[in-house]
């Protein structure tokens, strides 16, 4: 099989495998904010022995795993409003200080969900403009401009199979030109000034197949690899 084989078959990653892949790039000592939803799952897949410190916009630095049933503390929740824990060395701060950490480029990585990402790294993840519901932005715009590096984790296409990596975003922007890396259920793609580079694709996928599901032009990185997460229940 080569990267130009048009009839190759492949299997997309499930959500836990996507979270696993994103987690592999979180380095020892990194301070990381995980967005609500799929990004939050990445916390469970940091390689053993690596200390990564997770930040929560509601005033926690050093977020731990979910509490054991029966040990939940009503005053200890994460940004998704789920019960959480604090690890040793973790601290609490007020909202303005929590967002100072976000906005002031103190976090190493912000891992966000997205509706759409453009080839320029524009991010759209805050509103679908559904006219029957009020808009909500939460901390999305603060997170999208603040961290040293913004990475996105999302399904490669929408439910109808249409690309979500676009030449230009159709939905209102969260922030322009901020995304540096995209983890999808099919590939790992870097956003560079020279365009989109595919770093990894799932086993059996070809660049042509991936391109067909992606609006802007993709280039295959010289050192591209197969994206091969461990087996995981979806």
């Amino acid at each position, binding site marked *: 099989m080569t990267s130009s084989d048009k009839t190759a078959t492949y299997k997309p990653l499930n959500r836990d495998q996507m979270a696993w892949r994103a987690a592999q790039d979180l380095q020892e000592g990194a301070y990381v904010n995980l967005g609500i939803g799929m990004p939050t799952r990445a916390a469970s897949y940091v390689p053993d022995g690596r200390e990564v410190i997770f930040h929560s916009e509601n005033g926690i630095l050093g977020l731990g795993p979910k509490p054991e049933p029966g040990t939940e503390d009503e005053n200890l929740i994460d940004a998704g*409003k789920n019960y959480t824990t604090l690890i040793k060395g973790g601290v609490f701060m007020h909202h303005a200080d929590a967002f100072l950490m976000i906005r002031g480029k103190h976090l190493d990585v912000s891992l966000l969900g997205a509706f759409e990402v453009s080839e320029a790294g524009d991010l759209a993840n805050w509103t679908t403009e559904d006219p029957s519901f009020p808009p*909500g932005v939460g901390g999305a715009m603060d997170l999208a401009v603040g961290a040293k590096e913004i990475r996105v984790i999302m399904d490669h296409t929408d439910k109808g199979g249409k690309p979500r990596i676009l030449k230009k975003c159709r939905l*209102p922007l969260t922030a322009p030109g901020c995304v540096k890396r995209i983890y999808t259920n099919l590939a790992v793609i870097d956003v560079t000034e020279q365009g989109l580079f595919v770093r990894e694709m799932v086993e059996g996928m070809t660049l042509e197949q991936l391109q067909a599901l992606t609006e802007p032009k993709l280039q295959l990185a010289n050192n591209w690899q197969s994206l091969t997460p461990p087996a995981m229940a979806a």
Partner: protein
Amino acid sequence: MIDKRVASAAEAVAGVKDGAVVLVAGFGTVGIADDLLEALHEQGATNLTIVHNNAGNGDTGLARLINSGRVAKVICSYPRSGDYSAFLNAYRAKTLELELVPQGIISERMHAHAAGLGGFFSPVTAHTKLAEGKETREIDGVLYVFEKPLKGDIALLRAKKADRWGNLVYDQSARNFNPIMAMAADLSVVQVNEMVELGSLDPEAVVTPSIFIDRVVVVGAKA
């Protein structure tokens, strides 16, 4: 002898006027002054502007104020949280105005008021719909949006412990907006679980110094 204790939640919220801007601390259902919100409902002020991260949940507290038609405007970052049907109904009926502000900008705008500033330039919302109609400025190659300070007539706060001066400490993530809102209102009132002796809070660990607090009421721990 300074003693900021008041006897009841009703006394704590006494004097709120129609049209007041009310800062309501809390995130999700954590760190919210539920008893003060209920007392504000009893108190009767109307045409309120509420500053809060969300927009009420169920039919208590802020949601109850909305259902009773007492809220003219909500300044928040994320109305769609929990059971926000009270807000949604009023929003759809156009009886309530929404000013959507990113979460970190709500808190920084209150911080700016607290610090006596006239406004600041923020990179958040630049090049987005939320910056439409706002002043922008390029500084060192980055586009910033001018944000105005945000102040409250009253702040409704919840803390873990207070002393009679009004020094406060909080409980874990229930701290959230409380310390910022405490600094940003003309009148800051707090419900606490417990009063402690003056001098028993660690002076290195008080989160909200007493200067920001006007009234304290003990309502006991959350059920």
